[in-house]
């Protein structure tokens, strides 16, 4: 079983085993998925404060329409969809003219000793274009397949595969200290 499948199962389990009132269901979702959702939101908007606000709004909307969630195993995908819409709405409303870069504190978080290679990797992910970063997040953080990601993003499976291929290629190029434009497709293969 791959890393991605494990990731999906672990997050779905505690939710699907809790049955009860709307409040109980909701709290189960929050405890099981809020951390993953926050990380996804953070890498989507690259701003800790905004990420928390996004997650709060997402769960509030989820609370309002919890009756629409029939299968608890689909909860994570459902929440991600809500979060993406919230993010798009926010982006549409405020249209940040300058995409600010991540501050070192944002990358390190509260941990005092984040290894340099982890920080470098975070910087490389943050610097990826949104069109590459998002499918990569969905796959690595969310554990979704190319087909599922294609459904989330409204793209063809082929387009998603291309984006994931290029995302990994660019990450590798950045981390190896090369300008990705000089790294040929063939040399990566």
């Amino acid at each position: 079983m791959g890393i991605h499948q494990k990731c999906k199962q672990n997050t779905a389990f505690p939710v699907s085993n809790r049955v009860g009132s709307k409040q109980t269901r909701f709290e189960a979702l929050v405890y099981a998925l809020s951390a993953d959702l926050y990380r996804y939101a953070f890498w989507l908007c690259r701003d800790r404060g905004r990420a928390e606000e996004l997650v709060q709004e997402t769960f509030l909307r989820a609370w309002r329409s919890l009756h629409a969630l029939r299968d608890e195993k689909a909860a994570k995908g459902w929440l991600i969809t809500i979060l993406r819409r919230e993010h798009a709405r926010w982006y549409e409303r405020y249209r940040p003219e300058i995409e600010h870069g991540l501050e070192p504190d944002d990358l390190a978080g509260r941990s005092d000793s984040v290894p340099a290679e982890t920080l470098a990797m975070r910087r490389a992910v943050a610097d990826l274009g949104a069109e590459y970063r998002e499918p990569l997040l969905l796959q690595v953080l969310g554990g979704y397949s190319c087909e599922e990601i294609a459904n989330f993003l409204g793209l063809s499976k082929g387009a998603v595969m291309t984006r994931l291929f290029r995302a990994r290629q660019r990450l590798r190029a950045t981390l190896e200290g090369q300008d990705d434009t000089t790294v040929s497709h063939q040399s990566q293969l």
Partner: protein
Amino acid sequence: MNCLEFRRMCMAEPGYQDSDYLRHQQECPRCAEYAANVIRGDKQLAKALRVDVPDNLASRIILRQSIFSGRAERRKARRMYALAAGVLLAIGLAGGWFIVNHVPEVDRAVIARINAVPASRVAKGQISNAELIRVIRTVGGELNGEIGRVHYASIYYVREHQCGQLIVQGAVGPVTILLMPGVYIGGARDLHSRELNGIVVPTTNGSMAIVGEPGEPLHDIEQNMRAAVTWRL
């Protein structure tokens, strides 16, 4: 699947589970090593992406939701109270309108008869005692005493009921007495009319309406009628 196809697929989805993909991975050591590298890189990436989550994030989300749902509940309760108040107000208004405007059927019949034969237009003469006895008997009564000067006595019909109309001289002016056997009312009450001064009272076999000028002592006339007439059941 050849090596190029395998590596392209691996870079796009390292955990791909297709049988051709897995077979190639088993059969080609260089591609297996390539896949292992990509998976190792993904594990490092997954670890790097796991940024710190704010303290008590879940609790704060639940707190905000509970505040929101509390507000929503209060809004809902307020809406319900407003609705209930609206319904009560509507009922109150309708009830008030009913009380103010609703004229009981008996009163309508009384008013209609008085308008048909107004006391003011009846000659102020006196009818014979025999005629008075006949009319009272027709409506189920027996005259046993004096009821004063009677200007008018006749029988009329309200639906199938035979009723009697008397116009007698009161202290202030002419007084109309309508004898309505078979028309039962709950209790004595004032006539429901802005123009007329009247009362409607129960009798043994139905009811009796007494209508006179303002200031006319109608209850005295009622007592007089009760004393002078015996009603048959």
